[in-house]
């Protein structure tokens, strides 16, 4: 008890009988700060490791931080790019980051307040400790939303996803569907205007008489302005500028759907797509940030590399097949460029590898990943209604995953039974 922090925690511990809800909340935060001092005893077959659920979840959150940093920057970058200011990526970085923070922070706060509120309530009601599944869900949800998502829609989506998708099934670890994707799919079907089309991926634009103009800057921007003015940097100003000529706001995928790779690469260079300087959901654009996160997850043994590799294989296979078919310009997009556009890598690294909803067996993981890759690309290329396929493909395979596991297990049992007979 030398640590002053632990003494502080012990002193403020609420009484479990008199205020059970407060105690539940307290315990949630206490175990986040310290690992419990009681561990599994030496008897039995349990794994004895300091890496409990909380530590695992926090590692995923850490792996997502690069996406957060780049996403924050890219919200602002896309905004100024549309207005025709600070065209190069190194210009006006402070404005871009400030702009991104103003957009992203409310989304982040709402996600965590609403989601953790529900989580706390259900833990208290069930008499369980607070389970940490929501830390990752809450870190993922802001990254897969468009930067201008209205907060009330976000709130509804989270309430829906956490209650119907997770708590109804019994809480963390019992959900059938990926909770973060469920929140997104709710927005996608309930309020399609705020998450699809060409007009939602770039933040801070108003449409007046069919033309875009920059929205007026609010008090938060003026607050940053007062700081930047003091330091002598550029400021936001008043806003309300017209956008650059020929601006459409379409993502590379939307362009590729209309006119193949030529049209997409005419608007965005391949290197822009690679580094992530393209419009899209907040966290999905930057490929290096996602790949570093994915490598971190693999290195720490949290995410399954089998799913990632088989997903890449599945998409490459389907991409080659579509190249060979080549009926529309979109099918003729070289298969390797599909990695550049849209959210394939993000879905691969952080969504498909969710250990709860993915297949559990080793061979099952190969099948699961491969099918996500193949089905996702089919939805992306062949379906005119859905511009991107990974969300639907992963949710679909989440439902199929138990069946895959069942088939793999049955196959294994049959094989072993046969072997036993031969030897006997």
């Amino acid at each position, binding site marked *: 008890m030398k640590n002053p922090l632990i003494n502080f925690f012990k002193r403020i511990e609420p009484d479990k009988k008199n205020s059970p809800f407060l105690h539940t909340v307290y315990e949630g935060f206490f175990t986040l700060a310290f690992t419990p001092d009681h561990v599994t005893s030496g008897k039995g077959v349990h794994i004895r490791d300091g890496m409990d659920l909380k530590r695992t979840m926090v590692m995923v959150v850490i792996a997502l931080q690069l996406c957060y940093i780049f996403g924050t920057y890219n919200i602002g970058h896309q905004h100024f790019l549309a207005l025709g200011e600070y065209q190069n990526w190194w210009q006006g970085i402070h404005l871009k980051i400030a702009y991104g923070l103003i957009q992203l922070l409310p989304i982040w706060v709402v996600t965590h307040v609403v989601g953790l509120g529900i989580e706390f309530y259900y833990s208290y009601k069930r008499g369980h400790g607070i389970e940490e599944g929501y830390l990752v869900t809450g870190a993922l949800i802001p990254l897969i939303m468009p930067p201008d998502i209205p907060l*009330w829609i976000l709130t509804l989506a989270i309430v829906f996803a956490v209650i*119907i998708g997770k708590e*109804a099934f019994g809480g963390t670890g019992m959900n059938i569907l990926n909770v973060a994707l469920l929140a997104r799919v*709710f927005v996608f*079907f*309930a*309020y399609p*205007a*705020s998450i699809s089309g060409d007009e939602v991926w770039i933040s801070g634009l108003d449409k007046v008489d069919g033309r875009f103009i920059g929205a007026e800057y609010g008090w938060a921007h003026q607050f940053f302005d007062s700081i930047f003015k003091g330091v002598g940097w550029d400021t936001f100003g008043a806003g309300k500028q017209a956008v650059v000529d020929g601006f459409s706001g379409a993502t590379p995928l939307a362009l590729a759907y209309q006119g193949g790779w030529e049209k997409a690469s005419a608007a965005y260079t391949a290197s822009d797509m690679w580094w992530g300087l393209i419009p899209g959901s907040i966290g999905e654009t930057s490929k290096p940030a996602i790949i570093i996160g994915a490598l971190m997850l693999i290195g720490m043994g949290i995410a399954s590399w089998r799913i990632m590799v088989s997903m890449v294989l599945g998409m490459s296979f389907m991409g080659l097949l579509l190249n060979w078919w080549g009926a529309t310009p979109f099918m003729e997009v070289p298969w390797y460029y599909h990695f550049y556009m849209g959210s394939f890598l993000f879905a691969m690294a952080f969504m498909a590898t969710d250990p709860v909803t993915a297949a559990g067996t080793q061979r099952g993981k190969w099948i699961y990943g491969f099918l996500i890759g193949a089905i996702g690309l089919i939805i992306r290329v062949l379906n005119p209604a859905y511009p991107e396929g990974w969300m639907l493909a992963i949710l679909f395979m989440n439902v199929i995953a138990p069946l895959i596991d069942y088939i793999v297990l049955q196959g294994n049992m049959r094989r072993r039974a046969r072997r036993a007979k031969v030897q006997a």
Partner: protein
Amino acid sequence: MADTATSTAPAQEKEPFFGKKERRLLTDPLNDNNPITVQILGVCSALAVTTMVYPSVVMAIAVTFVTAFSNLTTSAVRNFIPKEVRMIVQLVIIAVLVTVVELTLKAFNYQIWKQLSVFIGLIITNCIVMGRLEAFAMANKPWRSFLDGIGNGLGYSGILIILGVIREIFGRGTLFAGSPLEIDIIGAGEKFMINTTAPGSWFSWYSNNGLMVLPASALLIIGVIIWIQRSSNKKLVDIS
């Protein structure tokens, strides 16, 4: 055998016209034995017609009518139906009643008939109707069968109307649209009570929930209703 038959026969004759048992026939399907949320019958039509309240009400009345009178008719002739062809006889009875409903609707309310289209005809295949015939009417007297039919029809109606109200308010911002009682609650336009496009409107952020128009939402809402019902009704504790 003979003893029990003679001893129970007078007791049956003394049954009151509308006693406790009869009342239970009416009230049980409303909650404890609801055809949709407990027996999980008739879900298909509950998903299909409930995007608005008015068609749901018409559908509910139609199904109640068909269950009640098919129960009554089947129960009246139950002793003359050969076991081997009872399904076909029941189907004929249901089909006659459904045709009556369909022609009546077509004659007196063509608009709503067009809106419900095939689903009126599909009452024939509604599992509630056939289920009640098999489970109740084939073994009970006409009056009680009739009450059972009404009760199950009302249980179905209750869920249908709850679904219709939720889906119409959040999916379209109206209530009873298409009927003379139409109330326009929220939406973009002059006719709505809360006009989201009016200058300075407090609700300019609002938009309708597109999920509520899809049949999937009805399934989700039924799931939530079942959840609430099972957690509040002690008789429905899962014993499986």
